[in-house]
């Protein structure tokens, strides 16, 4: 098991329309990059507990689109999608992101940087929204529906893989 304390997620707000997420993973960045960009990997981890990624489409090329749809513990759905802008495996991924139902033009631009040191990867993702209002709306409502606490699907998944 990983020491969760050393792998804590850091969320900072350097300006009123940005979010910066920093997280360390105990794996080489090649693996982290693949886990982020291949549907066969994403379905195993992306989403809060109790939510399953039911649609995961990725066209991994500059200008290519992606679309994710989750189903929650009560059958509720949420989705997000966007366009890949820059793809530089295994160190940099720039894409736009918006939640399904969002008004066009309200998408964020997300820049993920992966740095590797001694076999561990530090992910720094900078999310820039068009305005403070959009950022705050995403934080206040967009993710709320994405959180379910009903069960720990991961434990089940790991058992089937063992």
């Amino acid at each position, binding site marked *: 098991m*990983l020491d*969760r304390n050393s*792998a804590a*997620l850091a*969320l900072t*707000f*350097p300006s*009123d329309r940005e979010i910066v*997420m920093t*997280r360390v*993973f*105990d*794996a080489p960045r090649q*693996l*982290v990059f*693949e*886990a982020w960009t291949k549907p066969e*990997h994403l379905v*195993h*981890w*992306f*989403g*809060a*507990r109790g939510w399953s990624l039911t649609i995961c489409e990725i066209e991994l090329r500059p200008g290519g689109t992606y679309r994710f749809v989750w189903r929650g513990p009560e059958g509720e759905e949420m989705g997000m999608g966007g366009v890949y802008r820059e793809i530089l495996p295994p160190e940099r991924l720039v894409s736009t992101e918006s939640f399904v139902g969002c008004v066009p033009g309200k998408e964020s631009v997300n820049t993920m940087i992966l740095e590797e040191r001694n076999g561990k990867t530090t992910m720094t993702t900078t999310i820039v929204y068009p305005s*403070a*209002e959009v950022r*705050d709306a*995403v*934080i*206040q409502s*967009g*993710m*709320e529906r*994405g*959180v379910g606490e009903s069960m720990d699907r*991961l434990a089940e998944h*790991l058992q089937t*893989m063992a």
Partner: protein
Amino acid sequence: MTADQLDTVFAALADPTRRAILARLASGAATVTELAEPFEMSLPGISKHLKVLRRAGLIEQGRDAQWRPCQLDASPLKEVADWVEPYRRFWEQSFDRLDDYLQVLKNREKRRARQK
């Protein structure tokens, strides 16, 4: 808390001197002179920072004109934490799952390397 109030709190927290002032006040009330000491800053300079913190509701200042001791009010900090909590939880839970999944991928690669 409205979006404007949140922005005021974030702006107040964006400055390292103001964060240090809050950290100092977390261990008890202090006068402006006491607060100015570790920063090698003029009293008007510190007063400017205190004004920003006061507007954000992060400190209360006594009315005694001579001493005006400052006190921390942590309630806006809790509101900021509550506001971002669902967002944080989404990503924390995803990344915890990713931790475990990366171990699975690492083991798979090791097995593959052994088979070669």
